[in-house]
């Protein structure tokens, strides 16, 4: 039966080739679009995770409230404020970091975590000063939860060691300060006298805003600079499976008043954009299905019309309806498999070509587009091609199987 199906298809070489190309190109387009979209998504997620984490646990934001001040300062008096008290009470800090460490150590889904102190500081070198966002980290822990090390232009994250006042500057900040590797800059918390820090590394994140303000130092040195020994503002957590961030964050929120945010919740705008991208990908998948499906439907319908006499003789020599259905359905299946393979191969080649194009602008670590080669893209593309071909083949094949030999013989005699 399979041999006959193949022979019938080869007898209509032009038709078969065109529909084979149609399915192949449809699948290829899906693979390229999905590869680029998922590559871009991976890039955005990596960027975002470098700045945050899968889950970020940070101190509760406390604000000054009028009633609180009145009750504490003037418990038995009527107070009329000209300007009521307002604003943030203090830098958000974790109330019980040790408690969190215990929770994280006992959660099997946690790959690693990094306690951090995030402060605003003023960096100065000779005549120029700049406000910077200084992140105090424990390097050995930080490298386990993000790929920041990959973005180092010079030096290593491990070069910042506690008690040595060493710092890594983002490349544009370094330029603004007129500093270079090995030079010393002054850092101030804005209140106390500045402390000297030695530049031991340069980092380039590929994000303009961050590259102008970002700096890294050891947690202990940042605590010392900020005059807040032992303080941690956040714990960045990496999970084995980043998709578990939302449910875990939800569970942990119940444990304390600290803020616990999964990466999806912390970046809702980005997630919305990703959802829109996914929608586009699904639309393309459906389009591929429809184009392939219509092609197969047309080819099989024409073929069945032309093959009525053969169907009659097959039925009259005892071929069952099911076998006739199988004969034509297998042609759809063959076209779907061949087209799916062609689409996968062409898609992979074009993705490789697109991924190797050097652009004039930087995208993360390089000048190339991020292209995803996730095997699921190829499996989905192939399955879409095969399924659409099968589904489209069902109607004409079924109508062929319903033909009785007598109808056809009468028609042709």
């Amino acid at each position: 039966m399979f041999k006959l199906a193949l022979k019938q298809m080869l007898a209509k070489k032009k038709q078969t080739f065109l529909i084979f190309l149609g399915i192949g190109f449809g699948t290829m387009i899906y693979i390229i679009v999905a590869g680029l979209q998922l590559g871009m998504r991976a890039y955005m997620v990596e960027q975002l995770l470098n700045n945050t984490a899968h889950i970020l646990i940070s101190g509760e934001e406390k604000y000054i409230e009028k009633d609180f001040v009145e009750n504490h300062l003037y418990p038995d008096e009527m107070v009329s404020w000209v300007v009521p008290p307002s604003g943030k009470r203090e830098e958000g800090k974790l109330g019980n970091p040790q408690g969190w460490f215990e929770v994280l150590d006992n959660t099997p889904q946690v790959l690693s975590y990094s306690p951090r102190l995030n402060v605003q500081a003023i960096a100065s070198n000779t005549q120029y000063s700049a406000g910077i966002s200084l992140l105090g980290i424990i390097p050995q822990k930080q490298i386990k939860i993000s790929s920041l090390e990959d973005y180092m232009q010079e030096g290593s994250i491990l070069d910042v060691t506690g008690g040595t006042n060493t710092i890594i500057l983002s490349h544009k900040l370094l330029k603004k300060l007129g500093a270079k590797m090995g030079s010393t800059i002054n850092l101030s918390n804005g209140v106390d006298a500045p402390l000297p820090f030695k530049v031991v590394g340069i980092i380039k994140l590929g994000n303009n805003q961050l590259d102008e303000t970002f700096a890294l130092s050891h947690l202990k040195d940042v605590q010392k600079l900020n005059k807040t020994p032992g303080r941690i503002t956040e714990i960045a957590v990496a999970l084995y499976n980043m998709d578990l961030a939302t449910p875990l964050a939800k569970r942990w929120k119940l444990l304390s008043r600290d803020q616990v945010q999964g990466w999806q919740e912390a970046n809702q705008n980005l997630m919305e954009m990703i959802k829109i991208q996914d929608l586009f990908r699904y639309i393309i998948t459906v389009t591929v299905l429809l184009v392939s499906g219509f092609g197969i439907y047309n080819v099989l319908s024409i073929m069945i019309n032309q093959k009525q006499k053969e169907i009659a003789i097959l039925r009259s020599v005892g071929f069952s309806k099911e076998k006739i259905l199988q004969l034509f359905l297998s042609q759809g299946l063959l076209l779907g498999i061949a087209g799916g393979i062609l689409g996968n191969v062409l898609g992979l080649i074009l993705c490789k070509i697109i991924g190797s194009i050097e652009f004039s602008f930087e995208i993360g670590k390089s000048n190339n587009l991020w292209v995803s080669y996730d095997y699921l893209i190829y499996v989905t593309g192939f399955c879409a091609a095969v399924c659409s071909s099968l589904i489209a083949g069902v109607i004409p094949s079924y109508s062929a199987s319903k033909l009785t030999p007598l109808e056809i013989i009468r028609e042709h005699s």
Partner: protein
Amino acid sequence: MGLVVDHIHKDFGKQKVLKDINFKIENGEYVSISGRSGSGKSTLLYILSTLDIPTAGDVFLDECNTKKMNDHEIDVFRAKHIGFIFQFHYLIPELTTLENVLLPATNLKVESSKVERAKELLNELEILDQIHKYPSQMSGGQQQRVAIARALIMEPKYIFADEPTGNLDTYNAAKVMDMLDKINRESKTTIVLVTHDPDFAARAKREILLSDGRVVN
């Protein structure tokens, strides 16, 4: 045993094509059904060969009532016991002579055991040299002989031939008729031949003459 036709009628809407047909064909008999165009002879053949069912009455093939057989039983019966020869050969153009002849065997998955038989038949039909050719590379007479070989490959009990010489020249028509005589004589296959040619009809051992949907002899 044999083929029993029990008071069959066939209507197409208000048109009565067959009226109370009643006869029996013994195993190994060679019977022709003849009559003018529109007398109902092809319709009768299609009913006898399970391709159609009567409006009323019954047909028994080897004591099985064809009306009571389900689709699967009919498919199996046709595959094993019936060979068809039509006016048009209905060969599969994408298959070679050998593959066309083996088609019923392919259906029953006994293809390999029938290759030698196919070659014998093609040799008897004097077209062994055409074994690897496609239908389009053969003459009409050769194509019809391939169709005969296909009808015989499973050594059926019954051969139903509907105007098998209708598209052939005199020489090839005579060859086909000789072949049918030989098959009946040597393998005792029951042959039911529909023809409007009185000479060919006369070659059968018994002739059933139809006129206006009734048997008149």
